[in-house]
Each structure stands twice: as structure tokens, then as C-alpha cells.
């Protein structure tokens, strides 16, 4: 066992049984991750503002790639994705190839999702940015509910609930909301995956099946490494995720849909040995929810469109810790 640099005083029985690493990043590292995540979101926001009816998914993802490259991004964890219309809900997806950007054109009222994972100096971000072209009441409703997933996940991670149980609780919330779990369409049914600082040496900017060559190297090494402790760098609902959140950075991407409208966010969750928090709270979706909450409290009306509707969310009483 190669648990590095752990002082005897901090080694409790519980941690020993988890046989793992301490939290591997210092404040400087986290700043770099945060900076990159903000940069990625800023690029996605710019592309979102540029989108208009008639643009295809391929054009949108290419533009996102160019924006990121112009901002200094050297490599991609995975290539930039764009999904429009019912493809945001992954309807009729049968093969993984269908995730790739298509010739689908954006139309008025359609939802869209942009997803990219830039790498700079080995620091990686993986973000999901959802939006809509024109008015969509269904989109607005899901967006307001999406906040509960963010609160729920961090609260459960802080309690060190095993990852597969958090997954099940997210599923229960989805069922209560009356939505569909769409992250289960991702390869491995994952709601999230670990992010590390990539140190691989392969060619930057080259991708195989949508994943950067360096990503594949890193992922492979992580996968094998974690396997030794009966853990997985992937966060799904199966046996491999039957362990408490591993300290490190997790890109978490709850993806829900109602009928043909799908929404997600994806951002980094910081898990330390005894705590968990979202890397950054200054993100487009968080600001959007905050504005909506402010407006509704100003007007003294409930957040929900139907007065009196209260959805008993697991995490409704959990405050997001400000960091």
C-alpha cells in the first residue's frame, strides 16, 4: 500500500480501511482548476449567446473548440459536444456514436446543451452548459428544479454517503420530479467521474473516439489504480461505486429530461477527507438560480408556477456553503 505522507496522528481506523490517498491538491492547484472551469464556462456562454436558429450542432461544437483554443486551451479531455432539441434528452440514442455532434439545426424554442472539457498544463475542467433558443416553459421548470440536484449531491457527499447511494437518491429525486434520468445513457451510466491533473505524454490535441489520447492514458491508469482499492474513478449506480466519495476532484453531471427537453450542468466537486464542496459557486446556472430566487423573494411569491405546490426535496433544507 502506498499511502503517501500521512502523519500517524491523522490515520484513523476508518481511513485505513479506505486505504487511500489524502486530498492531492493544494490551494494553488484548486485555483488553477477553478480558473480553467470559469474559462470553459465563459467560452460556453459566448457560444450560447452566438447560437441562433439554423446553426447546426457541428457548427456549434466547432465554434466552442475554437473559442477554447483561442483562450489558450492546449488539449481536450474529450472533444466539445453540442446537442439540440430532443437530442438534449438523448432520445433514440442507441450507439455511443450518436453523442457526436450532428447536422441537427437549432430551431426556435429548442433546448441545447454544450459540453466541453479543456486541458491547460494538465489541469482539466469538464463543464456542461444548458440553454434554450427562445421561450420554453418546460425548460424553465426543469432549470429551477436542477438546483435541488446540486444541493442534494454536495450534501450527501459531505455526509460521505456511498456514491451508489447518492446516485440512487438522485434517481429518487428525479422520480419525484417526474423527470427521466438521462445520465444513465452515458457510457457506464455515469453521473460523474474523477478528474486528475493529467501528466501523460502522448500527443496533445489528438483524440480517439472523442477522448483525448492523454485522457485515455490517464483514465486507464486511474482505472487500474483505483481498482486495487475496489473503487472506481467512474461514479455510477453499480457495485464498483459502493464506496464513500474518494478524496479528489469529481466532475459531476446530473442530466435530467422531461419529454424532449433535457438539461444538465457539469462542474467540479471537491471531495476532501472530511468535507465536500463545489469548486466554484460563481457559475452561470448558479447565478441564474440566484437571480430567480431574488426576484421571487422580492415579489413575495413562491418560486413555483403553481401556488401551493411543494415538492418535498431531500435537500431543500440544505444550504450551499459559500466558498
Amino acid at each position, binding site marked *: 500500500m502506498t499511502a503517501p505522507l500521512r502523519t500517524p496522528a491523522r490515520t484513523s481506523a476508518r481511513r485505513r480501511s479506505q486505504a487511500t490517498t489524502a486530498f492531492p491538491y493544494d490551494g494553488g492547484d484548486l485555483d488553477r482548476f477553478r480558473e480553467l472551469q470559469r474559462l470553459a464556462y465563459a467560452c460556453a456562454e459566448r457560444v450560447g449567446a452566438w447560437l441562433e436558429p439554423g446553426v447546426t450542432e457541428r457548427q456549434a461544437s466547432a465554434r466552442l473548440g475554437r473559442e477554447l483554443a483561442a483562450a489558450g486551451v492546449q488539449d481536450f479531455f474529450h472533444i466539445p459536444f453540442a446537442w439540440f432539441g430532443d437530442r438534449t434528452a438523448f432520445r433514440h440514442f442507441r450507439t455511443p456514436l450518436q453523442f457526436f455532434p450532428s447536422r441537427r439545426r437549432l430551431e426556435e424554442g429548442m433546448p441545447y446543451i454544450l459540453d466541453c472539457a479543456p486541458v491547460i498544463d494538465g489541469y482539466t475542467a469538464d463543464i456542461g452548459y444548458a440553454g434554450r433558443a427562445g421561450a420554453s416553459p418546460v425548460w424553465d421548470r426543469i432549470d429551477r428544479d436542477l438546483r435541488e440536484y446540486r444541493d442534494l449531491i454536495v450534501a450527501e457527499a459531505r455526509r460521505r454517503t456511498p456514491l451508489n447511494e447518492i446516485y440512487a437518491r438522485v434517481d429518487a429525486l428525479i*422520480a419525484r420530479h*417526474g423527470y427521466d434520468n438521462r445520465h444513465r445513457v452515458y457510457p457506464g451510466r455515469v453521473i460523474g467521474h474523477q478528474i486528475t491533473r493529467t501528466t501523460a505524454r502522448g500527443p496533445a490535441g489528438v483524440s480517439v473516439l472523442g477522448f483525448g489520447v492523454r485522457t485515455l492514458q490517464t483514465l486507464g491508469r486511474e482505472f487500474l489504480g483505483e481498482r486495487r482499492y475496489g473503487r472506481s474513478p467512474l461514479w455510477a449506480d453499480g457495485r464498483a461505486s459502493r464506496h464513500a466519495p474518494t478524496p479528489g476532484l469529481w466532475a459531476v453531471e446530473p442530466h435530467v429530461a*422531461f419529454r424532449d427537453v433535457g438539461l444538465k450542468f457539469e462542474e467540479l466537486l471537491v471531495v476532501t477527507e472530511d468535507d465536500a464542496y463545489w469548486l466554484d459557486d460563481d457559475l452561470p446556472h448558479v447565478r441564474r438560480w440566484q437571480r430567480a430566487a431574488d426576484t421571487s423573494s422580492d415579489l413575495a411569491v413562491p418560486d413555483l408556477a403553481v401556488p401551493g405546490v*411543494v415538492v418535498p426535496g431531500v435537500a431543500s433544507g440544505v444550504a450551499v456553503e459559500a466558498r
Partner: protein
Amino acid sequence: MRRRAVVSAGVPLAMYEQGNPAGPTVLLVHGYPDTHGVWDDVAAALAADGHHVVRYDVRGAGASGAPRGVSSYRLSHLADDLFAVADAVSPYRAVHLAAHDWGSIQAWEAVTDPRAAGRIASYTSLSGPCLDHAGHWARRRLARPTPHHLGQLLTQATRSWYIGLFHLPLLAPAGWRLGLAARWGSVLARAEGVTPRAGHPRPTLAADAVRGIALYRANMLRHLLRPRQRPTAVPVQLITLTRDRYVSPALGDDLDRWAPRLWRRTLTAGHWSALLEKGPTVAQMIGEIAAHADGAPAAPALERAAASSREQAASQRQRLRLGPRLGPRLGRGLERAAFAGKLAVVTGGGSGIGRATALAFAEHGAAVVVCDLDLATAERTVELARLLGAPEAHAYRVDVADSAAVDTFAREVAVAHGVPDIVVNNAGVGHGGTFLRTTEKEWRHILEVNLGGVVHGCRAFATLMVERGEGGHLVNVASAAAYLPSKVLAAYATSKAAVYMLSDCLRAELAPAGIGVSTICPGLVNTNIARTSTFSGRSADGLDATRDRFAALYARRNFPPEKVAWQILRAVRENRAVVPVTVEARAGRLLSRLSPALTRAAARIDID
């Protein structure tokens, strides 16, 4: 009842007035071969409701004058008669008109006349189209002879067989005189299901019927072959009779072209039984449109009738433009507005199959009422239903096991939203456990919810549906366990088998009232039923483990509740009796019929 005579172009018309003379005037026009007497029940109900009810015998019938010559019975003269009566009884205020059969045909002539503006406030038509509209209706279908259109033409032609006979010399008059008139009462009783009553038909029947043949000869071919353009701005309520042997519902398909302010209602009744058996229902419909035309807000049922009319018009236009296959459809061949104007009630609508069903009805244009033990989940369903475009959606907290609560719920729904057209008794609980392990308390709970819930729901709502007389549909969600025995599902399977049998019995009982009953047997569907199921004889830990195991099984099977909802909509649409949904439910049903012994052997398997 006051009787007086009104003279119209030299023909004396016998007119009868009753009710409150200061109330809104409702003018009732009878058809062939009737007299004003056919409206007795409707008139009594309207008079009791504060209306000023006026009836008259049309020319050639009852106590009115009978001019000679076929041309005296042209529609223009008949419309003049109608205006003469209206002027005599309500010279300064527009009247509300309701008419049946030939009365409806002549009333259409008046309603589509320029004089109608300011004289006729609303018009309720039963079983009598405007002949000009019918002429255009047939032309449109001949110009686009799709199988659907040819079918409609053929259906109407076979229902109009007697019209040809009426144009032949001697035959029809001889038939009436040589015995048909004398036996008319029993013909109505046998063919139309009308209870014989004193004073009907009137003694003047034979003479009325023979003279009335002139109505056909003077008007039919003339208007059908050379139809005029006859639009109207008068609010029109079209009451379609589902068992009418003479007028097919399709005849009203294009009506929105001519009457843009249109309300479509449906009544489960025959051509004559509508007036003679369901008088109060017809009176209520007339009263509703009259009140609305006079400025009152629309009654919920009337509100939905307008929606139904709009949607039907839209899909009709689409069909005429694009052909029958290309209309706006959602999956599985149902048109988007397939349930427009209908009200669907779903019990246990806060989750799983109930929620999916309520949403599917909402997606297809229906108003929905959702009840659940957990009000918050029902309200969530309601919100989603509104997002999908439900014209109305309401949530209630109801414990279906409580018969008094279900009765109260049904009454509240009827008052606030109208009598539902579709009721889905879906609420149920899962339970696993062998017979000897199942306690008496558990038995009572399972039976009270799974069977009692369905019994109470059916009783409360079927009573309302029968009273209303417009038909409806009950859907009872049973289970594949209803016909697949298993030793570990003793209580659950018993309760579901009872629901299955109850539905079969109920179907037979309610068929004459036009109420369909469907039994749905879903099979393993991915809902929270496994998570909320109870299991006999388990410790708390064992219970959780068992639940996890079953939940995992249901999740692996991963059959979405939305697909069950589709089948429920289809069952209602096509009035299907029993619908097993998943492959295992279908295979199980087949097996239970091919080899019951095999299913009994399989019942021994310990699936626990």
C-alpha cells in the same frame, strides 16, 4: 300550459307556452312524425328551471293547419313559421332555439337566415343537419374519395334508406295508414328503447306522418343536390346522439365551417330516446348554452365542449388538407387532440403509471384531475400536466380505501369540473408474502386499497356518468398477477384477480349506458411500487434487502410507465376490454389460457 294560435302566411299554428313568462324564452321545434308532445319532458324540466318554454306544432302536424301541396312545405315557409312564433311570444328579445329531427332541419334554415341576428340568441340542434351543409359535406367527400371519406358517405347513405322510400309514390303513405302508425309506439319501444307512455304517439300520427312526407319531397333533393352557402353567427350547440340510427355523427364534422361559434356535446341516446328518456339531460344542455349566450360564464362541461369543437375542427382541416394519415399525431397513432374536451380522473396519479397516464391524457388535450394519498406528488403531476398543455389540471388528496372520501371526491369533481368522461382507477399497493405469513391486518389493507379503491371509484363515478347520460369510460388497473398465481403473492394476486373479475361484470352492466370498462394488466413496470411494497414476515433489515432486490429487478426490466399510459389511452379510444401490456403479461395471459395447469405449477416457484 297556455295554448294559443299564431297565424303564419295564412296557416294557423297551435302554440303552447309554459313556465315563467318573464324568464328567457326557449323555443322548441319538433320533428317528423311527432308533435310538440315529444318535448314534454324537456319542456317540464326547462320550465321548472325558470325558463319561458314555447312549443308549437309545425305546419301539417298535430293541431296546426295543413296547407295543401308539396311546395307549401318548403324550408323557407317553415322558417317563416318559426319567426312568426318567435315574434308572437318574444317580440323584443331574442329567443333560444332547440330543435330535433326535421324541426332541426327547419330551424337551421331560420338560424342561417339573415333575420336570425337579434332574433335567435342560441341554437341547440339534435339529429337534424342543415340540408345545405349536408350537401356540401357530401360534395367535399366525393371530391376527396379517401377510404375514410367513402366510409362516412356509405354509413350515412345506409342510415338514410327511408328517404328514398319517401320519394316513391304511394308506398310510404300506404305503409303509415296500413298499420305502421298504429304500431309506432311499439316500434319506438323495440327499436329505440323508448318506454311506452300515455299520450304518445298522438292520435293524429297517421295523418301527420302522411302529410309530413311532403317535407322530404319538397326539400331533400333540392338542397342536397344544389346546396347554398349558409353560414351563421348564432352560437350553436350540436348534440350528437351516439345511437342515432338515422343521422351519423360524421355529418357534423365540417360544421365549424358554417357555425364558428360551435359547442359539440355527445349524448348516449337514440334518435327518440334522447327526448323521451333523457329529457332532463337535454334540458340541462339547452339551459347551459342559453345561460352562456345570455352572458353567464360557461359551465365546465360547456367549456370543454367548445375546446373539443376547436380541436376537432383543427384536426378536420388538417385531414382534409393532408389526408388522413398525416394529421398531427403523437406516437402510436393517436392524434394530438384525441382527448380534447374530455375530463380524465386518475387515482394514484402522484407517481408511476398514474402520473404517466395523467400526463399522457394531458398531452392529448384532456383536462385532468389527479388524486393521490400524497397531495404534494399529485400537485407535481398537475404542474407537469399544465406544462404539457392540459387545458385544466387539478390535484386532490384522496384515500381511495375510504369509500366516503371517494364519494365526496367524486361529488366535488362533478361540481367544480363536471362529470368526468374517463376515470382511471390506478391507485394500488404492492405486497409480497405467502398466505400463512400474511396477517389479517395486511389482508385488510391490501383488499381495502387494491379492491376497495377500485370498487369505490367505479361506484362513485359510474353513478355520475349514468346520471349524466353521455357515456364514459372506466379503466381499472389490475395486474398480470390477476391471472398468474404465485404462492408469494397470495393477497396481492387475489386483490387484482378480484379487480379483473369486477371489471368484466361491470362492463356488461354499464354497456347499455355507453360506459366502457377496460382492465389493464401491466406486468413488471419500472415504478416505485417495489420500493413502497410491503412484505409479510420480514424484519426491518430483511424488508429493506427484499425491497432492494425487487426494485433492482424492476429497474433491470426497465419498462417505462409511459408505455403503460399509451396502452391505457388506446384502451379508452378503442374500448378494449383487457389489455396485458408487457411481454411477460401477454405471454402469461396466453399461458393461463393454453395451460392453466402450467401456471399453477409455476405458482410453486419461490420467487422470493
